[in-house]
């Protein structure tokens, strides 16, 4: 099958890839671009392990063709923080034990990041509703919700820098 050249902006860098029309974005990210933070958990858009941010929206990259992402700006977990300066959400997930096996974590944090962008002062109910598209089998969500609320608090401190 013929391949289409893609130019994407991933985590602030312009990158080139090639994909068949049927190729899913998650496969291009993971296998060509070696961005393995987003994971595959279901292929049916239910679990959210593959969540990335595209042009300011949360997207489950297992149900989007890579060619649909042509020219977009994509942020994955790898683009949120780095070893020298973690994102507040990454810090808070650690602090509040918001992860166990780690498989859902990149998608969960990426989703929580968008949620807080859109709603900087969420209630617990807002958080629970806002991350309901991301499944976790280990934590029972309680500490994830705690971590997201704690991150929101910290980001709302006047001196905070994301």
């Amino acid at each position, binding site marked *: 099958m013929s391949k289409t050249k893609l130019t994407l902006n991933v985590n602030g860098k312009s990158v080139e890839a090639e994909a*068949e029309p*049927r*190729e899913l974005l998650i*496969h291009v990210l*993971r*296998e060509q671009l*070696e*961005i*393995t*933070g*987003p*994971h*595959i*958990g*279901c*292929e*049916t858009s*239910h*679990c959210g*392990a593959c969540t990335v941010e595209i042009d300011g929206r949360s997207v489950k990259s297992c149900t989007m063709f890579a060619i649909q992402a042509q020219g977009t700006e994509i942020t*994955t*977990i*790898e683009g949120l*923080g*780095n*070893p020298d300066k*973690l994102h507040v959400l*990454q810090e808070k*997930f*650690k*602090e509040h*034990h918001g*992860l*166990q*096996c*780690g*498989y*859902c*974590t*990149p998608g969960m*944090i990426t989703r929580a990041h968008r949620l807080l962008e859109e709603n900087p002062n969420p209630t617990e109910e807002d*958080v*629970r*509703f806002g*991350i*309901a*598209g*991301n*499944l*976790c*089998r*280990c*934590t*029972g*969500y*309680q*500490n*994830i*919700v705690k971590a997201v609320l704690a991150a929101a608090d910290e980001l709302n401190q006047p001196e905070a820098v994301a």
Partner: protein
Amino acid sequence: MSAAEETMQERQAALKGLGTSRKRVEDARFTQGKGNYVDDIKMPNMLFGDFVRSQHAHARVVSIDKTAALELPGVVAVLTAEDLEPLSLHWMPTLAGDKQMVLADGKVLFQGQEVAFVVAEDRYIAADAVDLVKVEYEELPVLVDPFKAELPDAPVLREDIADQKEGAHGPRRHPNHIFTWEQGDKAAAEAVIEEAPVVAEEMVYYHRTHPCPMETCGAVASMDKVNGKLTLWGTFQAPHVVRTVASLLSGIAEHNIRVVSPDIGGGFGNKVGVYPGYVCSIVASIVTGQPVKWIEDRMENLSATAFARDYWMQGKIAATKEGKILGLWCHTTADHGAFDACADPTKYPAGFMNICTGSYDIPTAYLAVDGIYTNKAPGGVAYRCSFRVTEAAYFIERMIEVLAIKLNMDAADLRALNFIKKEQFPYQSALGWEYDSGDYHTAWNKALDAVDYRGLRQQQSQQVEDFKAGKTRKLMGIGLCHFTEIVGAGPVKNCDILGMGMFDSCEIRIHPTGSAIARLGTISQGQGHATTFAQILATEIGISADDITIEEGDTDTAPYGLGTYGSRSTPVAGAATAMAGRKIRAKAQMIAAYLLEVHDNDLEWEIDRFVVKGAPERFKTMKEVAFASYTQEIPGVEPGLEAVSYYDPPNMTYPFGAYICVMDIDVDTGVTDIRKFYALDDCGTRINPMIIEGQVHGGLTEALAIALGQEIAYDELGNVKTGSLMDFFIPTSWETPNYETDFTETPSPHHPIGAKGVGESPNVGGVPAFSNAINDAFRAFGLTHTHMPHDHWRIWKTANDLGLHS
């Protein structure tokens, strides 16, 4: 506080040892997307494998035509049973003494069964080729109901063993019958039930479900033909056993096989078994000389690997009029699917189902389990529980409720009346276990007080009155559960898997500068072993947990162990860690004595150092001793500071807990709302309270899933009706409540640090608590028992059957 005491406290805190809510060392990589799961592995020239699977539940395979698939550019090979037969790999042994087809050999026995393995250059081409393999089937009658398995017109499923009258677990009375397993005294139990003043009876069905970890199963096999070495990365909860099995099956010497479990995205029992995908990946790599990756998709995961439960438990419980339990009888029909691939210790074909007397002092009991073949997927794994312990706990906790109804007694009082008393431990159960320790009354009373149980019952009565008066359409259920688990398998004298004794191991090396590495035979799948095992060791050897690396999962470097499942890591490998730590300390004491020029016995251990008795200013820290062990000649002592321990536990451990769930139920929609969930766990000595609490939250949520909707359902043709996350219920953050956790601490008397294991308690205790709440809500309207899963429709139907909609 004196300065010396303060320093002692500071030194203690610096260790981050037992009892500390130490933050997890795993989290840095996981929060940054830098975990290394099996599907993240990428190798030069790596090929992808994918299965052709049967759409039929029972059919003869008339022919397989792979011509078109092989003609597709990029397809490297298509393997069928015919190709595996010369290697004797078309069948493989199961963990339960049966055998299982790797690829369909003449017939298929369940929907989703592996028929052919396509190997191609990428996963898209492999998927295309799967569609091009033409398989001609001749359909056969399907058996999905285990109660019809032995009827005269029942189809014979396993023609390969139809004539065998003796199976791995004794006589077989029918071609579709696998085993009968009996425990306890049948005649005595039946006599007690015959004569007892009160007998309650119920059929308790624990439906078929699935562990469904976020990451599915997968493997990468790489045969290096130059060096004759096979490396196998995969989602293995028991990597060392996989190495031994791979060696026995393939004929490759065990030292030439390296099995690696990288990061695992949740296991919950799903990743204990050996699956056809692993075998086919190995064969494909041997055939092609290239690395081969195989990763299940979610539908394959749900329909083909590792179901759990599916126990029909017929029960009778006898008591005096005052509620003192006299006897228990249980007959279980166990639907094992097409192959008996249950992951249980060899001598326990129904796992530890004989813990079904629960937390109660029941003088006489009898249990029989009949294993049955049906046209369903094989598995029978311990989904977040020790072997069949959740079935046992669900059974007894439902029977207690049913008995309370029969006696017209409060179910909390009935439990308290029958608990094994603190002074009765160690307690010999009627079905053969020696419970090591427990204090059930204390835990129970703490739980009842914490939720104001009597107050809740008053509220509930009022609500029933209001309902009857038409003031509300909601009912309130109070779900009680006091469970006793049996974990930490187990003593080698009676526990083995494929002949391998169920010990576990730890090997420690202290580095010259006083940091350390410890390797274990277990493998974390999210439990945080790298964090907690370092804490055990920190307390034992006085080196900060932050200075100890924990490694697991690489069979070339880790000592042999049986892996992580059945809450066995802390009870067995945790014990090995403590024991190896004590060996380090014993040697260190000799070195310290030499350095301080005193006798060994003149030293005492104090947090992180050896101190000369009566002369606290004279001491050597473990760090100083470690340095000396590498840099100085110590007469009579070998250089270096290392130890290894293989721990064979003298007994199981018996964690327990008291759970109370308060549920509101909308009678007209069947929608449930969890108002409160209180969970008290006693897992003995607590290593890391933060991690324990996290385990409890997670286990309760898996219990919620199972009790309220999660099932693997089949139609009468053997079609899987719940094969994707559209139909297979996993709770989201929206329907999951906040849990209140609590604890008591009754250390195990035989475990080196008194720990018992906790990861599975919340699933074992949670399922009965949720289910009892649903049943309890309708008790006032005449309901005795209704089966799980309690999804909205079934709850609505229960209300409707009770006439509550008219």
